[in-house]
C-alpha cells in the first residue's frame, strides 16, 4: 500500500516537473510572439508608454497603413506566387524522383541518392554567386521564373531525400495488389501510392514552403524590381524607409507568420493520423 503510494507520488512529481519544463519553454518562446501581436495592435503613441497599456487602445490602424501606404500587398502576393509555384514544382519532381529511386533498379542508384543529399551540404551563401551567374546568362535574373527555378533546385535534394524515406517504408504489397487489380504503374502511383504517402508529401511541402517563404538571401540577390520582391526583402525595405515604425513592422510580421502557423497546424493533423494502419495485417 505504502509502496504504491510512494510510486504514485513519484509518478506525479515526475509529471509535474515535466509539465513545468514544458510550460517554461512555451512561455519563453511564446512571449516574443505575443508581444509582436500586442505591438501590432497598438498605435505608435502608446507603444513605449510605461506601464504598458495592456487592456486599452486597441486599433487596426497599423494593418490599415500597411495595406494602403506600403507595397506590402504586392510583396505578399509575390511571396505566395513564388513559394506556391516552387512547392508544386518541387513536390511533383520529388515525388516521381523518389518513387523511381525506391522502385526501379538501375546502376548507381544508391550513389545518386547519396549525391543528392551531398549537394545539400553547401551553404546557400556558397552557391548564390554561381546561381546568379547561371540565371544571368539565361536572362532570368529579376524574374519570378528565375527565382522559382533557383528555389526548386535548392530545396529539391532535401525533399527528394525525405520522400524517398517515405516511399521506402511504404509496403510494396499494396502496389503489387494494384498491378494485379489492373493498374499500370502510373495509376498505382496516383490511386494507391500517393494517397498513402500524403502525410509525407504534405510534411515535405511544408518544409519546402517554409524554406522558400523565409528566404532572404536569394531574393535579395536575384530580385531588384519592387513589383517582383517577396516579403522578406520587402519588409526590409519597409524597415529602411520608415523611422522604425514598430507598429507597422509588427503588423507585417504577424501576417507573415500566419501561413507558417496554418501549415504547421495542418501537418500536425496529418502526421498524427496513422494512415498506414490496417493496410497490411494489424
Amino acid at each position, binding site marked *: 500500500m505504502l509502496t504504491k503510494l510512494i510510486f504514485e507520488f513519484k509518478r506525479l512529481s515526475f509529471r509535474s516537473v515535466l509539465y513545468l519544463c514544458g510550460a517554461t519553454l512555451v512561455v519563453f518562446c511564446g512571449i516574443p510572439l505575443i508581444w509582436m501581436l500586442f505591438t501590432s495592435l497598438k498605435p505608435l503613441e502608446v507603444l513605449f508608454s510605461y506601464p504598458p497599456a495592456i487592456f486599452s487602445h486597441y486599433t487596426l490602424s497599423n494593418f490599415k497603413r500597411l495595406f494602403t501606404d506600403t507595397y506590402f500587398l504586392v510583396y505578399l502576393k509575390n511571396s505566395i506566387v513564388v513559394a506556391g509555384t516552387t512547392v508544386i514544382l518541387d513536390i511533383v519532381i520529388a515525388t516521381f524522383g523518389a518513387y523511381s529511386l525506391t522502385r526501379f533498379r538501375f546502376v548507381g542508384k544508391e550513389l545518386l541518392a547519396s549525391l543528392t543529399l551531398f549537394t545539400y551540404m553547401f551553404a546557400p551563401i556558397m552557391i548564390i554567386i554561381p546561381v546568379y551567374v547561371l540565371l544571368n546568362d539565361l536572362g532570368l535574373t529579376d524574374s519570378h521564373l528565375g527565382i522559382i527555378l533557383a528555389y526548386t533546385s535548392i530545396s529539391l535534394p532535401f525533399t527528394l531525400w525525405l520522400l524517398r524515406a517515405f516511399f521506402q517504408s511504404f*509496403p510494396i*504489397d*499494396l502496389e*503489387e*495488389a*494494384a*498491378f*494485379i*487489380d*489492373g*493498374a*499500370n504503374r502510373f*495509376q498505382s502511383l496516383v*490511386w*494507391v501510392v500517393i*494517397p*498513402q504517402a500524403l502525410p509525407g508529401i504534405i510534411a515535405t511541402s511544408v518544409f519546402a514552403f517554409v524554406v522558400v517563404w523565409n528566404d532572404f538571401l536569394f531574393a535579395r540577390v536575384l530580385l531588384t524590381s519592387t513589383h517582383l520582391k517577396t516579403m522578406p526583402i520587402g519588409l526590409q525595405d519597409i524597415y529602411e524607409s520608415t523611422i522604425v515604425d514598430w507598429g507597422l513592422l509588427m503588423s507585417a510580421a504577424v501576417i507573415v507568420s500566419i501561413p507558417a502557423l496554418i501549415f504547421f497546424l495542418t501537418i500536425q493533423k496529418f502526421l498524427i493520423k496513422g*494512415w*498506414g*494502419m*490496417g*493496410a*497490411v*495485417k*494489424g
Partner: protein
Amino acid sequence: MKKLVLKNISKRFGKVVAVNNAELEIEDQEFIVLVGPSGCGKTTTLRMVAGLETVDEGEIYINDRLVNHLPPKNRDIAMVFQNYALYPHMNVYQNLAFGLRMRKIPKAEREPKVIEAARILGIEELLERKPRQLSGGQRQRVALGRAIVRNPEVFLFDEPLSNLDAKLRVQMRTELKKLHKRLEATSVYVTHDQVEAMTMGDRIIVMKDGTIQQIGSPSDLYYKPQNRFVAGFIGSPTMNFLPCRILEADSQLYIETGDFRLPLLDHFADKVRERGDSKFILGIRPEDIREKKSVQPSSFGGSIKAQINVTEILGKEVFLDLTTGENTLSALISAEPEENLGQEIELEVNLARIHLFSADNGNAII
C-alpha cells in the same frame, strides 16, 4: 485445354536458385496446392505466374497464351496476399471495386458485381468501413472479395489463412473449398501447412529447395510418396525413418534394422531384388503401427519390442513415443496401452504400407 502451364521455369536471385526447372500443367477448374517448407520457392513460383516477378528461363501459358512478357494486368489473374494488402485509404466497397474501375467497367455495372461478391462472402454490412476497422477474418474476406469480383481466369493464393487463428483457419478452409466449387475457378494455393494442403487440394505439388518433388492427389502423396522428403513432409505425426538392410532367409526377404526384423511381402520383393544393393531407409507411418495383441486378421505382422517414453491421449487415438534399441519410434494406436511409461510394449506393423527408400538419394523403392 490446359488452363495454366509452366514449362521448365527457373528463377535465380543472385546465387540462390529460388525455382529450379519447374514443370506443371493445371486443368480448368482444378484446385492445386503448392506446399513445401519455408524458402522452397512457392511464393516465387506464384509471383512469376502473376507477373510480379520476371522469369529467368522457361515459359508460362495461361489459356494457351504465352504470358512471360505480359504485365500482371493483362494476365487476367487475381491474387490474394498473405497480409491481405487492402488499400487502407479506401473503404471496403472501393477496395472491391478498384479492380473493376481500373478495367474501365462503367459505374452502373460495377455496383451489382461488388454487391454480389460481398453477398457471397457475407460482408455486405461492412462495405462502408475502412480496412483498419475490420477484424482479421473480415479483412481476409475482403481480400477474397477483391479477387472474386473480377471473375478472373486463375486465382492465386499465397498463404491466405496464415494470419488467422487456428479455429478461424479451419472454418475458412472449408469456406474456401465451397467458394471454389461454386465459382469453378482454377486456383493455385500456396501453403506450408501440409494439413491445409491435404484437405484442400485436388492435386498437390510438393516443393523443396526450388525443385518440384512430386505432383499428385492427396492420397497419392500419402500412400505413394516418391521420395523420403515427401514421405516425411506429408502426414502427421511424421513418418518414422530407420536405416535398414535386406536379408534373405529361406527365400523370404526380411527388413533388418538391427533392433527388429520385418518380413517383406512378396509383391515388394521383386523391386527390392532388382536394386541389388542392401542398404535402405525403412519408412513406417505412426498410424501403421499397432499393438501386437490386436486380434483382427490383416496385413499386420512382424514384432517390435519397444520401451514407452511418452503417452499422449489425442482423443480417439493415443500417440506413443518409443525407443527400440538405437532408434526412436512414434506410433498412433487406437487405445491406451496397459503398459506403463518405461515398460516394454510389443507392436506390429502394417506390412502392406511400409516404405523403403534408397539410402543414397532418398528415392522411393516401394
